[in-house]
């Protein structure tokens, strides 16, 4: 019983749910603020994403006449939010929180991370707009491109941890975190550097920022899949994207740098780490480059990230 309560709490309050949402919004706010500063502007207040969300709550949701079906159109973002809530509860925070095995492991998390992309695809096609359709095909191409390297990277981490612990592979994130806490972070382990390099490319692609914001490119396909959404339904997408930022960044920390003291200081340390990661890995990248074309992005991922990812797996396999 308490176990179930703890589970619910993990999904809806901490570290998933409310906590992840508020923190995710704060991260987005920080991203916008820092981006503004880099561009020589004042920028919006930190709480701007929160204001936006409240505002969307007051607006009317319109379902386009061209929509394939209201349930699909409105259900898609809801599925995405639920998936991200669960995913957020799956990400360990070093020294603070270890997810219960019953929720799932790294493989489940990988699947959940694909959900937002799929949701965007469904949303795009359900809206019935031609731009949505183009967004759909671009999202699909991009997912194909970045999921490959990601799987290889995760496999490398799983192998390294598994063998290090004397087993074969482990897909338990808690174990991966614990292993690094005793044997040193993978970020500092030269064997894992190709994996880190490959993972770095995964960030912007998965979070849909420049140079990989191709499916949602405002100037090409308007906002692609989100074009037809309004009001609370659009708000759900914002929630999904805020949660996703926490999950993806948290995953990165768990995979490569789960170094933190225990208890409340651990949490503070983690929050700061996440913020730094957001700014360095997302904000700075997005203000300093332009967008790629989908074919360029595809070719790019089949080159460098895949090369790094494959190399990482090979190196891990050779070194043992």
């Amino acid at each position, binding site marked *: 019983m308490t176990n179930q309560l703890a589970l619910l709490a993990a999904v809806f309050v901490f570290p998933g749910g409310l906590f992840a949402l508020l923190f995710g919004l704060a991260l987005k706010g920080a991203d916008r603020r820092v981006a503004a500063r880099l561009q020589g*502007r004042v920028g*919006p207040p930190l709480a701007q994403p929160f*204001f936006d969300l*409240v*505002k969307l709550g007051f607006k009317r949701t319109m379902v386009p006449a061209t929509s394939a079906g209201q349930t699909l159109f409105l259900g898609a973002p809801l599925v995405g939010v639920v998936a991200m809530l669960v995913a957020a509860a799956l990400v360990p925070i070093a020294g603070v929180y270890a997810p219960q095995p019953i929720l799932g492991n790294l493989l489940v998390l990988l699947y959940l991370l694909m959900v937002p992309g799929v949701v965007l695809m469904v949303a795009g096609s359900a809206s019935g707009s031609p731009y949505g359709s183009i967004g759909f095909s671009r999202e699909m191409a991009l997912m194909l491109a970045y999921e490959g390297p990601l799987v290889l990277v995760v496999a490398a981490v799983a192998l390294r941890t598994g063998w290090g612990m004397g087993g074969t592979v482990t897909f338990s994130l808690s174990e991966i975190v614990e292993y690094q806490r005793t044997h040193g972070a993978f970020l500092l382990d030269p064997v894992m550097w190709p994996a880190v390099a490959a993972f770095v490319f995964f960030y912007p692609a998965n979070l849909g920022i420049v140079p990989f914001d191709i499916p949602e490119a405002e100037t090409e396909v308007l*906002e692609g899949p989100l074009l037809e959404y*309004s009001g609370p339904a659009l708000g759900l997408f914002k929630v999904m994207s805020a949660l996703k930022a926490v999950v993806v960044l948290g995953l990165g920390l768990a995979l490569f740098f789960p170094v933190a003291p225990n208890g409340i200081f651990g949490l503070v340390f983690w929050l700061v780490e996440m913020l730094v990661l957001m700014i360095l890995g997302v904000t700075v990248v997005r203000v300093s480059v332009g967008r790629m074309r989908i074919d360029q992005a595809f070719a790019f991922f089949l080159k460098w990230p895949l090369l790094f990812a494959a190399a990482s797996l090979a190196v891990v396999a050779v070194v043992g």
Partner: protein
Amino acid sequence: MNIIADLKKVATKSPWLYRINAGSCNGCDVELATTACIPRYDVERLGCQYCGSPRHADIVLITGPLTARVKDAVLRLWEEIPDPKVTVAVGVCPISGGIFRESYAVHAPIDRYLPVDVNVPGCPPRPQAIIEGVAKAIELWREKL
């Protein structure tokens, strides 16, 4: 009830802008782009954000004298913006037809076809004037929410 009122106050800090070009000469449009996007004026300070889809918009800025061919598209687009919304006519063309008023191809003033809330005259208005207009629109929007 108080919470709702507070939330509404919060909501007005996030007015998203959308612009419709109803056949303008570019002047107002370029000034709108300037106002909305560049560091010097940075309307993001006010929580404003330019959006690519009419469905995301709260404040709609219309420029141009509403030409015959663009009229239906403009009116349809305006319908697609979810309520509550505030309409701002930027430049003298949508307000009165301006210099083009007597042409066969122009349907201005635009308030014959849709309710306008704020007018920003100028040819084109300078960015600061547009910001003033947007500020007025935000006030009206708060009442409408």
